[in-house]
């Protein structure tokens, strides 16, 4: 019987292109390197192409998806570095000076003069809609004025120190910008309320909100994005603590009240609310 000669073992996995082995001709090594260069150029090209195509599909003014922004976040000013605490000593000017400076800087764009120059006066209590008509873009879009004076006692105009010097500090609260967000349904104006955490409820004392009732006027919505609405002024709410207990930690939580915004779950501590600690030392 004639023997069948065993064939050389050829497995497809075995014969993948190997790295250049030493001892082979230099030009083989070169060829393999060339292959990899071409291969990676090809891949990079494909990557660039897909990126390019993907970027083409994006709208300049509005992100494709906003599913992670259904509840906008809230932030306070002034903000000390790395913490959500405002702790200072009335006696020690330096301890609160930085807060007032932060606020000065933050509020500078809201100066009445600047606002009057850049933005329009709008009809309050209704959305300021500037829809595009079909393909004709209605750009650039105008923005409504939010004047610093609307913050009254917390505007820093009459009281340069925002009440910090007297132990009646102002905290400014803003709602994160989200394109197209229309807070409040059926003409109801969203407003901010602040309260102390349970154990501190008797320490917080009286509060004052500016604008009155701590509302975000509807005319500032919707937001059309930084490209279309270059001079957009984010509405603010200031909270003034009139007789907060001194020399003790007071934990405060402020939240947005709007009938179409669900304030945050346990997990997202900054969705529709903000917590911080306030402590004013007198000694």
């Amino acid at each position, binding site marked *: 019987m004639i023997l069948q000669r065993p*064939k050389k073992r050829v497995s497809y996995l*075995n014969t993948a*292109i190997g790295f250049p082995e030493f001892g082979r001709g230099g030009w083989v090594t070169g060829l393999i390197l060339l292959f990899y260069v*071409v291969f*990676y150029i090809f*891949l990079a090209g494909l990557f660039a192409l897909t*990126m390019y195509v993907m970027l083409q599909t994006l709208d300049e003014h509005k992100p494709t998806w906003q599913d992670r922004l259904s509840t906008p976040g*809230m932030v306070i000013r002034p903000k000390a570095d790395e913490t959500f605490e405002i702790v200072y000593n009335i006696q020690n000017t330096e301890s609160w000076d930085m807060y007032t400076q932060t606020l000065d800087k933050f509020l500078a764009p809201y100066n009445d003069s600047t606002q009057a120059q850049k933005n329009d006066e709008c009809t309050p209590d209704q959305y300021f809609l500037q829809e595009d008509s079909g393909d004709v873009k209605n750009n650039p879009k105008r923005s409504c004025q939010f004047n610093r004076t609307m913050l009254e006692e917390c505007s820093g105009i009459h009281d340069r120190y925002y009440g910090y010097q007297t132990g009646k500090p102002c905290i400014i609260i803003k709602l*994160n910008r*989200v394109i197209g967000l229309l807070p409040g349904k059926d003409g109801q104006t969203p407003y901010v309320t602040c309260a102390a955490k349970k154990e501190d409820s008797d320490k917080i004392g009286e509060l004052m909100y500016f604008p009155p009732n701590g509302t975000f006027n509807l005319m500032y919505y919707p937001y059309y994005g930084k490209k279309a609405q270059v001079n957009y002024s984010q509405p603010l709410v200031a909270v003034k603590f009139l007789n907060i207990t001194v020399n003790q930690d007071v934990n405060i939580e402020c939240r947005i009240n709007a009938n179409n915004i669900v304030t945050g779950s346990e997990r997202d501590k900054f969705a529709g609310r903000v917590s911080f600690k306030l402590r004013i030392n007198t000694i």
Partner: protein
Amino acid sequence: MHVNIFPISGFVQDSYNMFEMDGEMEKKKKKKIKKKEKLEGMKKEMDIVSNDSYNELEMRYNTSVTKGMTSTFAQQILERDGPNELKPPKGTPEYVKFARQLAGGLQCLMWVAAVICFIAFGIELSRGNLTCFDDLYLAITLIAVVVVTGCFGYYQEFKSTNIIASFKNLVPQQAVVIRDGKKNQINAYQLVVGDLVEIKGGDRVPADIRIITSQACKVDNSSLTGESEPQTRSPECTHENPLETRNIAFFSTTCLEGTAATGMIINTGDRTIIGRIASLASGVGNEKTPIAIEIEHFVDIIAGLAIFFGFTFFVVAMFIGYAFLEATIFFMAIVVAYVPEGLLATVTVCLSLTAKRLARKNCVVKNLEAVETLGSTSVICSDKTGTLTQNRMTVAHLWFDNHIHAADTTEDQSGQSFDQSSETWRSLARVATLCNRATFRPDQEGIPIPRRLVVGDASETALLKFTELTVGNIMDYRNRFKKVVEVPFNSTNKFQLSVHELEDPLDLRYLLVMKGAPERILERCSTILIKGQELPLDEQWSEAFQTAYMDLGGLGERVLGFCHIYLNEKEFPRGYRFDPDEMNFTTSGLCFAGLISMIDPPRATVPDAVMKCRTAGIRVVMVTGDHPITARAIAANVGIITEGSETVEDIAERKRIPVEQVNKRDARACVISGGQLKDMSSDELDDALRNHPEMVFARTSPQQKLIIVESCQGSIVAVTGDGVNDSPALKKADIGIAMGIAGSDAAKNAADMILLDDNFASIVTGVEQGRLIFDNLKKSIAYTLTKNIPELTPYLIYITVSVPLPLGCITILFIELATDIYPSVSLAYEKAESDIMHLKPRNPRRDRLVNEALAVYSYFQIGAIQSFAGFTDYFTAMAQEGWFPLLCIGLRSQWEDVHLQDLQDSYGQEWVNIKMCDWLGTGFLLPPCLFVCRNRVLVSAIVFQLLLGNLLCYCPGMPNIFNFMPIRVQWWFVPVPYGILIFVYDEIRKLGVRRYPGSKLKFITSLTIFFLSITLSTVHPVSSH
């Protein structure tokens, strides 16, 4: 038939030396040196074994050759010596086995990673930062992974060991012992030295015993010596060597015939000869299995690379300006991302799946890793008896009417039968039937004749079964011819005869039937039966007889001659007193009826299996204790020696030249007997193995078997065997294969695999499965490696370019251990490439499980494509949510700043810091799915993967537990173009391999040109645009 014990005794001497026992050689040496009494005492002990008088025996063991010892004393000895049973080889303690599962190379890396996590967590904690529990979770997960995979591996190992435990004979052996002068039946393990035991035909010898009285006692020493010829046991000491003397029967051998021989126990338990050989086997080191070596090799590479990558990026991170702690965490994360945590579990599952499949085909694997070993095997040293052959003498040929007739030797009697019409056949059958002392054991009506149990020796059994099959109802037939007298076979006469009354009550003649060695039978004949006619036996018939005898003998068959005569009615009337000793009747001038030859025929499936091995590039070497002629005949029959192959002796005979002048390279086949082997140096043996592809070793001793196995090693050797004497070779082999039915416990203990049906053909299945699992493991590992790159690159990009982290560690662990296990395992179900049994066995030094080509292919080609796919998906998702690619770069520190709650995206929207680290991670789930798939299981695996991925993504509550966020359905489809690319690329590569099988160069060139042309053709319209 003469019995060559010599090499065997040599072996046992060695074993004696090994155990510092007093062997013959030692004895001689000591005689020379003339040492003190102590040594004399030891020598004496040896003497006792064979030629002490009974008195001395009684003195020594405080016993009596008639009454046995007292029960109380026996009890004392039992306490002193321990029970009479072989101690199972010391296994590794269970906790060590478990610890080993936890301390592999990869596991150690994971422990280190877990420790780093704990330290990081501890530092965070001491800083008072309680918000970050991620490190703790990760540490716990890592430890859980190690422990769970460890438990899993341990369980698999435990399960396969358990299979073996179930083989152990649960029914304790019984023995008849005489104590206090009374016969008792007790469990054999309670026997002690000095006990008087009784054995009879069919019993297993319960310990090493010195025969005191015996009657026609014969034992089967095959499990000890490999010699299948029954050997007589009698009280006389016939030889100085305990192994050759007749008055000692050995533990675990079987007493074939004889009634109530008594003997005194001289050794029990592990001190018996069998016990010593068994412990010799456990002394032979266990070789590492090839797959274990491969996996170790792989783990080394992976661990090395993981540490290398980790360290490199640790240094890079330090340079970039990360804090030390952060850099350490990066190191840990890279290790976690890089190490294929699920791989070991995958390998275990793949192996145990194959083990299960093999078990269904009658191969039970003791050590999971042995599953693959058979696939790498390039030499099989096969035992003859029982493995290649049916292990029962069967009538193969008959010579009558001057013609050789072939009988049916198949196991199930499915073969052709011969012409039974001749008158001569009837006479021959009558002689064969009557001149036969073998009988069937009672109550076996339902069992097919070839499998019935018979009392009698091998050739008589063969004849009995043969006549039962051809004539039918032998017991009845014998009763019709009443036996008057018989002379049993003995070595001087070399014949056996009996005288019978005739069936016909009117015919008062006696019939004398005789069988025996053909030449002796012929001497006594004067006529020959041809076609029913009695013709004078002249020169011509004599010559015809000689030719037939030589022919049958040349086939390695045992030939018996048969003749008969009707005794003269007047000379031997009814009632004549026949005297078997005097032989007062006619024993010459008989009528020759014919020859019947017997052989242990090969199993029907074996020739095909050997052929398959040969096409698979596996050499089958026969190593047997049997005669060279028989061995050669069987080898030729099953195809170990192929048709047309000649040995050196054949060529010498054909060319009529002396053996020395023949060029050894011309002879394909070679038969080496144990005697020749003894005089060969190991170099000569290696030479012979190299020069002759078809080898048969005959008359080999266990030690020689070991030498042969060692000479073959270098390539991977499989050894089959069943006897205790095979156990050292079984252990030495890369894979020892024991026989499930005929195999002794010692052989099964030493083996890695057990063939439940004792069939050589099952080995071929094993080889096929072993090769398949190797190929499939390769695919599985390629899949795993491929996946590693898209898991690792996010981290590298995260560290160097500071994009938000695309894929977190916990997610990686989920991908590795939850969603990807099933696809990896499903690759074990891949069908064999059709020519798997037409390829040479792999070269263990060259064909690694993971070689450069595989790694390069997985890492730099498919892995690269998948990474690009992952990043495409990541950047797409980010961009569509409002984070353009360029903004992402360098965003990391702000992104991860817990206190920055109004981070601006590309549209001017402000984001709070949501724990986004993992919300895109699942996008990386998809690319591995794109790995090319072929079979249905793999498709179902991918469906499973997608479902589990979806569950992890979309199940409510998941975000809180694992930080997974549902990803948009649209994003699943982003990597599709890359999937198509992988598919197309792989197909092209396969095509290239097929088209340019030899030339890597052309293949690479064409691939390069292919990619270059695509790149250019896309660049061209874009640039001209």
